[in-house]
């Protein structure tokens, strides 16, 4: 389940990162998009409870 949700997060990360960074080149939006990916990474690093 964790991986399925991570896959979904990765799928929405592409438009988020692309629009905020490459298209709009907006610093604040880009920081927000980076925080989104950083939270995903920290969540993946957290130990899984069900193991």
């Amino acid at each position: 389940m964790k991986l399925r949700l991570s896959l979904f997060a990765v799928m929405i990360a592409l438009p988020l990162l692309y629009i905020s960074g490459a298209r709009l080149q907006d610093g604040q939006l880009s920081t927000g998009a980076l925080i989104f990916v950083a939270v995903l990474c920290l969540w993946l690093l957290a130990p899984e409870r069900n193991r």
Partner: protein
Amino acid sequence: MTILRFLVAIAPVLALLGGILVLRWRAYRAAALAWLVAVAGAATVYGAGPVLITSASAKGLSLTLLVMLIVWSAVFLYTLAADLGAVDSIARRILDSSGDPLVLGLLLAWTFSGFMQGIAGFGVPVAIVAPLMVLAGHSPVRSIAAVMIGHSWAITFGSMGSSFFAVQLVTGVDGAALGPPLALLFILPIFFTGLSAAHIVAGWGGVRRALPLVVAASGLMGSLMWALNLIGAAPVSSMLPGLLGSLFLWLVGRSRTTTTTIARIDQVTPRLSFGWAFLPYGLLTLLSLLAQVPAIKDAAAGASFALGYPGLRTAQGFAVPAQEAYAPIRLIGHPAPLLLLSTLLTYLLYRRRGLWQPGAVGRARRATVRQSTGTTVGVALMVMMALVVADSGMAAVLADAAEELGGPVYLVASPFIGLLGAFVTGSNTNSNVMFGPLQLFASQALALSTLTIAAAQTLGGSIGSGVAPDKALIGTSVLGGDVREAEVMRRALPYGLLGVLLIGLEVLAVSLLGFR
């Protein structure tokens, strides 16, 4: 400051390797840590702003989309073929082709996997051949490791030569000049990967028994690779040598009768004839060849999807050039449409023949999602990390450090740079794109032959891509069970490192002998 910059530049790669090899994490967890380390270093020490880091990470996801479309469609075709009984039938025929498990192991892990790399690539050989190795009685870890190192000779000219074109693009070296000498340099890696596969499959005894076979097959495969490059047929310079090597080992296997039995051969009950079973892959081969016809290529030239990226600069002045169409996914030329078309044609022909199993698509879809999800998350974070390393200027610092080694040492080290790029991105093409320009600058600064350094880059990238963590991930996701990537990596990586060292010495010898 210079030492700090170097340590920060190498830290993401060390985080990735440490996570996988020391902490024995799943690759996606190590990749998550590596991306965080790369972003922290880029923002604090390298002066990369949020826009540059975001843009670099998005580029990573663009590359991931290109690669994972292939993996998802290949895994779907494979799971569908398995559901329809095609894989069992192919396995039966290949397993029956030789009574000698060593010859069979070489045929599967070294030559047939090279052929599969030629037509598909991007981890497909591991996804398809590793299960056949398990059916031949090898342990999952050995099977994946043998195919990882076994197919690595075929990666530069594999996937229809995509890595070979990438290295030309970024170094400005002419393909007609690079192809033939590169093919000759590949004879040693072909030979070495064959012996490595024999060692994984059957130990030192296997190496001794396989030596004459590997010498003969390497000579045949290397000569054909060279001849194909002489006539400008680089896109089929892995596929056809792989096919020739498979045919050679098949003929050798047929002539050998031993009392050794193959562990699980009796458990395989084929539902289909070999012709019908091979149909999905035969169609894929045919479509891949048709896609090379200039008229078809030209007709579909405009049909592609790609995102454009702006030129950006770090606060310290490192410039990233603008990319109008980054990592384009072409309708003809990208393997995914060919894989999907093969699947569709297989469906139509099987249905017509009454061989189609109801519900097969649903079962294959569920199996594909189950098997590919972790791989996708891991590859996405890994490639995002690699692009942050490249676009923030960290990769340039690593190249500068390598340059300080001096000419002869740099010659030996240059394929290791190719290996490093391929190892972290999982792709020979990405490695060539990432480190090709830096290798070019280093070769000019050290007055070394650009041709030799370009060859060393892609030779190291070829082996590095074969033993990269993403291949271990693909292998373990296809085979399932309790196989850990770390075990596979520990098994495969030493062969990759030794192979690249031999390539480095080969490149040094060629250079000392005065070939440029």
